[in-house]
């Protein structure tokens, strides 16, 4: 028992030591030509392309230029969830034994979640539970992947202008396609754009400036060129999946579309009566009954808007957390410990909330709405 606390204390001291090493003056005292302060990764909303597809690959398309780091993180978390399931499966077959250790821990969690779903979903528990638990596990793990040391901080050096040149190439390509040029002509034009922007970059930069191990900030050269953090940045290999619109939109669309599906499973086509109301008799008596139609349409719009609200809640929380960690790391590395704790909580909370809201909406869709006196 006592040994455990010594280990905790050691880890804490190591973190504090690492944070102190990150303060700029220390490497100055040691006379190094690089500083230990963390390099600020590229901050941009779309996932950065780590591996560009080779030319002529069938994967190249209007929306795909290469493998993005957010997609790698999504795959990692997916594989972790799969591994967890495969590890737990054999034990779940031996029903008689008293569960212990690792398995017992997850049985506790799953049983609690199952009971929770049962309370609000009733006979639909078997249908809703897989969605509930998958959303929790996948989103939770993909959020926590971002807290591993090395994620978001290990990557390739990238000069920001070069990155911008690549982006300018993509924009030029799309503009040329839209202007009605053939694909080849558009590619040539985009390539010319890239060369031009990159040429400007090469002129502005001294290529010999990438000094120091790739994890550390190089100091500016004697002429004061290339100050760290302004031109060179790290393009991380892995970045939390939920900081990419594609991931959050994908899970949000799955959640909302499956809600409609279960609504129709429960009520048949009558489900759509909630949205498209037309009471001819009532309207004949008093024209005010048209209001019901309007309310139904509003409800339909809010149903569609749920996709946006699901997606932005997750994206905003995780992306803001990521930026917060960078900024604190470059301002005051020691304080990052507290913010890691915060992000740990936020990551878990957002995953649980995503799943809880999905469950609530799904249960609401199966309940039916037709009696009129029900309020929501």
């Amino acid at each position, binding site marked *: 028992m006592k040994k455990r606390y010594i280990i905790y204390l050691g880890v804490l001291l190591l973190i504090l030591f690492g944070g102190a090493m990150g303060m700029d003056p220390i490497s100055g005292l040691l006379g190094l030509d690089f500083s230990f302060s963390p390099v600020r990764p590229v*901050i*941009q909303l779309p996932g950065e392309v780590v591996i560009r597809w080779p030319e002529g690959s069938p994967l190249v398309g209007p929306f795909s230029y290469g493998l993005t780091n957010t997609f790698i993180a999504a795959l990692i978390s997916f594989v972790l969830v799969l591994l967890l399931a495969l590890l737990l499966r054999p034990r779940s077959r031996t029903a008689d034994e008293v569960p212990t250790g690792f398995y017992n821990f997850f049985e506790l969690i799953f049983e609690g979640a199952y009971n929770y779903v049962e309370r609000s979903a009733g006979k639909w528990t078997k249908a809703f539970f897989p969605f509930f638990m998958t959303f929790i596990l996948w989103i939770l793990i993909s959020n926590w992947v971002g807290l591993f040391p090395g994620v978001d901080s290990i990557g390739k050096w990238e000069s920001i202008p070069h990155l911008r040149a690549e982006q300018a190439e993509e924009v030029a390509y799309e503009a040329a396609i839209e202007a009605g040029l053939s694909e080849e002509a558009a590619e040539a034009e985009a390539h010319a754009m890239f060369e031009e922007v990159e040429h400007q970059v090469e002129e502005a930069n001294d290529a010999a400036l990438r000094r120091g191990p790739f994890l550390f900030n190089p100091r500016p050269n004697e002429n004061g060129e290339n100050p760290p953090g302004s031109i060179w940045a790290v393009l991380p290999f892995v970045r939390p999946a939920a900081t990419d619109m594609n991931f959050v939109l994908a899970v949000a669309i799955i959640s909302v579309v499956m809600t409609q599906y279960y609504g129709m499973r429960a009520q048949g086509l009558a489900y759509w009566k909630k949205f498209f109301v037309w009471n001819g008799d009532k309207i004949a008596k008093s024209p005010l009954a048209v209001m019901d139609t309007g309310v139904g349409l509003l409800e339909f719009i809010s149903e569609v808007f749920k996709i946006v609200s699901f997606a932005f809640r997750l994206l*905003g929380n995780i992306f803001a957390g990521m930026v917060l960690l960078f900024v604190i790391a470059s301002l005051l590395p020691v304080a990052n410990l507290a913010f890691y704790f915060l992000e740990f909580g936020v990551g878990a*909370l*957002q995953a649980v*909330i995503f799943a*809880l*809201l999905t469950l609530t909406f799904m249960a609401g869709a199966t309940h039916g709405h037709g009696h009129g006196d029900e309020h929501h």
Partner: protein
Amino acid sequence: MDEQSAIILATGLKYLGAGLAMTGAIGAGAGVGIVVGGAVQGIARNPDASGEIQSNMILGVALAEAVAIYALVVALILIFVAPVGA
């Protein structure tokens, strides 16, 4: 005004816009305060129900907080995505 100072002005306005977008956090702050206040009153009156109240409170807080997060997303998009000039 020459092009250089126009770009500088546009950059400044971009950051000003991002700051203004964050005024959306006012409503979320009030909302979270109301939710937690209600939950604390509920727990004080009926401590046995604290577990259920707490989980509902967290759900409500997250929903209220979402509005602030939308504002934050708008601010982040203004800072990191919206181009200046061009």
